């Protein structure tokens, strides 16, 4: 197709729309930049940390090279060349104060490495790599860890600048000279935590559906004045601080809390057999259902609001009872709302952190609490990033499955 002046129509159209597009881009650019620098860039760099492992090869470049000729499966200590290279690397690293960071990094893989590096640092500083060799025996003298084959195996296994080690750790496995293997039994907790997170999120989503459906129905069908009042009750907790609400649940649920005291006072529960409903899964599920309920009610309500009353009237005029009308006519049309609410609640709860931290104890915590632990306490950011990446992957996968089954076009959020 050609435009009136002979240029291709597509080109002509693109030119006429260019100004419009530029203006639109200009309008969103502040937000775009903000999101870029405050959200996308940090997340991308965090995700990259899950595979990034340049610290070993950067701090010990000569050692890594020398270790290349060493057969880690032979069971013998590496030769003098490796020890010589190691001392040269370490002297520079100690000058730059980088050796302790390397120690912490390797400590994630083998406990004790951190103190080994720190203690050896003091003695190694005095050595001159040019004149004081050979170093093999001197090093083993300084710390007998340097005489352990395992130490060198760990350094070699984790010397690659890009590693899958963190991801293996995240699914309860580890990198060994013999390839990926399962962690020792007592260290396997992450898969269980992932499973628990998924299961509890499902339970929370389910209980939200059950509680939200009747409320949304009332909101959508009651007269305006009453339903506005109800809506305020729904939104009131929404406007209250999350911490306040979670703490309130702590007050409610603890052994000396409101619920237990009331039950004991009523004589329904013996004083010495108070219900344990906090610091476990029940606590997390109860509090999170309450906190996430508005996210279920609002999409349900907005969908139900669009179902005209004439549908139910038509069904009744044709002879359908109230139940048939609900089940055959009303419910099928409200499913998009259930879908929208469920996906919202499920995705929110799968990454929830504060509430399980406060009311979850040890049995009711989520994978996100573990991520937070590695970010702020153990400082194993690589593992935290790997866990986060997996979580993100799971959410995207579920979203995709959901789109295949329900169809994301059928979801209405308002």
């Amino acid at each position, binding site marked *: 197709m050609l435009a009136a002046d002979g240029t291709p129509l597509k080109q002509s159209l693109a030119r006429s729309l260019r100004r419009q597009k530029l203006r639109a881009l200009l309008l969103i650019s502040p937000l775009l930049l903000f999101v870029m620098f405050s959200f996308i860039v940090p997340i991308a760099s965090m995700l990259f940390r899950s595979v990034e492992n340049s610290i070993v090869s950067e701090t010990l470049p000569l050692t890594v090279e020398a270790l290349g000729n060493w057969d880690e499966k032979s069971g013998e200590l590496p030769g003098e060349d490796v020890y010589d290279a190691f001392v040269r690397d370490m002297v520079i690293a100690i000058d730059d104060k980088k050796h302790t960071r390397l120690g912490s990094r390797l400590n994630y893989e083998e406990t004790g490495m951190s103190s080994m590096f720190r203690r050896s640092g003091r003695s190694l500083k005095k050595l001159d790599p040019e004149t004081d060799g050979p170093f093999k025996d001197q090093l083993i003298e300084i710390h007998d860890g340097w005489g352990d084959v395992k130490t060198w195996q760990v350094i070699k296994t984790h010397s690659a600048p890009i590693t899958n080690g963190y991801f293996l750790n995240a699914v309860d496995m580890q990198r060994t000279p013999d390839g990926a293997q399962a962690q020792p039994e007592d260290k396997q907790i992450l898969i269980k935590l992932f499973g628990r997170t998924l299961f509890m999120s499902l339970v929370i989503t389910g209980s939200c559906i059950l509680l939200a459906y009747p409320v949304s129905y009332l909101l959508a069908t009651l007269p305006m004045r009453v339903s506005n009042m109800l809506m305020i009750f729904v939104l009131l907790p929404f406007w209250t601080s999350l911490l306040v609400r979670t703490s309130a649940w702590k007050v409610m649920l603890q052994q000396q809390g409101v619920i237990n005291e009331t039950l004991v006072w009523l004589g329904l529960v013996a004083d010495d057999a108070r219900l344990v409903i906090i610091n476990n899964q029940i606590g997390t599920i109860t509090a999170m259902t309450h906190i996430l309920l508005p996210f279920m009610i609002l999409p349900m309500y907005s969908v139900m609001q669009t179902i*005209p009353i*004439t*549908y139910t*009237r*038509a*069904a*009744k*005029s*044709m*002879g*359908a*009872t*109230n139940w*048939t*009308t609900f089940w*055959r*006519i009303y419910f*099928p*049309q409200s499913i998009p709302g259930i879908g929208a609410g469920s996906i919202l609640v499920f995705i929110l709860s799968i990454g929830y952190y504060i509430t399980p931290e406060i009311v979850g104890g040890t049995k009711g915590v989520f994978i996100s609490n573990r991520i937070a632990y590695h970010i702020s306490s153990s400082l194993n950011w690589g593992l935290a990033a790997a866990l986060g990446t997996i979580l993100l992957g799971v959410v995207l996968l579920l979203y995709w499955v959901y789109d295949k089954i329900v169809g994301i076009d059928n979801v209405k959020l308002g």
Partner: protein
Amino acid sequence: MTEATSDAAFVEFQRVQKSYDGEILVVKDLNLALPKGEFLTMLGPSGSGKTTCLMMLAGFETATHGEILLDGRPINNIPPHKRGIGMVFQNYALFPHMTVAENLAFPLEVRKMGKSDREAKVKRALDMVQMGAFGSRRPAQLSGGQQQRIALARALVFEPELVLMDEPLGALDKQLREHMQFEITRLAHELGITTVYVTHDQTEALTMSDRVAVFDDGRIQQLAPPDQLYEEPENSFVAQFIGENNTLEGTVKSIDGNTCLITLDDGSEIDAVPINVSQPGERTTVSIRPERVEFNKDRLHADAHTLKATVKEFIYMGDVFRFRMSVAGNDEFIVKTRNAPDAVRLNPGEEIEIGWLPQDCRALDA
């Protein structure tokens, strides 16, 4: 009760009142009786109470006072799904998650009808509205007119004796609406069903109904067959609401049986039929249809009273000529003449004399 009660009545409203808030009556003292097989239209402006009446009959609203009888039985306490009344809604209310055939089978299914019977009836109903090939479509894939037909078929498929229609043609364009008007009346008469039809479109009411009930302010202003409604309106609301109408204000000078003399506010005098006036001195609004006004003196009685008129505007409408004139202080006086070979075209500014036969001019309430 009074004259509304009759043995032949199939649907009957007896002194029905309805209030939503306990302060305002939306329906005030409604008495109405329909014989079996009648096509009755409730016509009125929005807020006149006509839809409320329909909803009370269907069972979606309860009467605040009074009794509604269906085939002699009071139905106030029967829930809608047990009334067996077919209903067509303004927006069709076809279930979007079911196919056309499933929509039609629904009323049969809830009546626990067997599958083969169901299919036969659905097919017959679809053929009846000439939609036989559309059974497997979804309502969203149909045009407005097709959806309308399906809604009609669905209301008829379980063979109700009474069908209610709530402005069913409101969403269609003019041509389709006219076609469907004909279609609905044909079906209603063929099947012999009693129909209560609600609309605010007077053309629809006039062309379709056996009788029309004109609603205003919660009351039936007039209940009559279409021709009577148009030609013999009983009060000025009906005269204004149905068709185009000219009104002139005045005072009754004298009444003599079936005619009366009216002095208009500018002093001129005209003849009229007294309808809502009974004695000289009363204020009145006289009503004349635009097509009954004559300005060809030869067609009037020799002794007929005439009025001076100034032509303000001439509008050519194809089949008719339409003049806007200034008559007795009313600048919106409309006169229509047929576009016949001998028709006169008057130009704006021309001064003429107009008149009419006394029986075409009705003296109504002020």
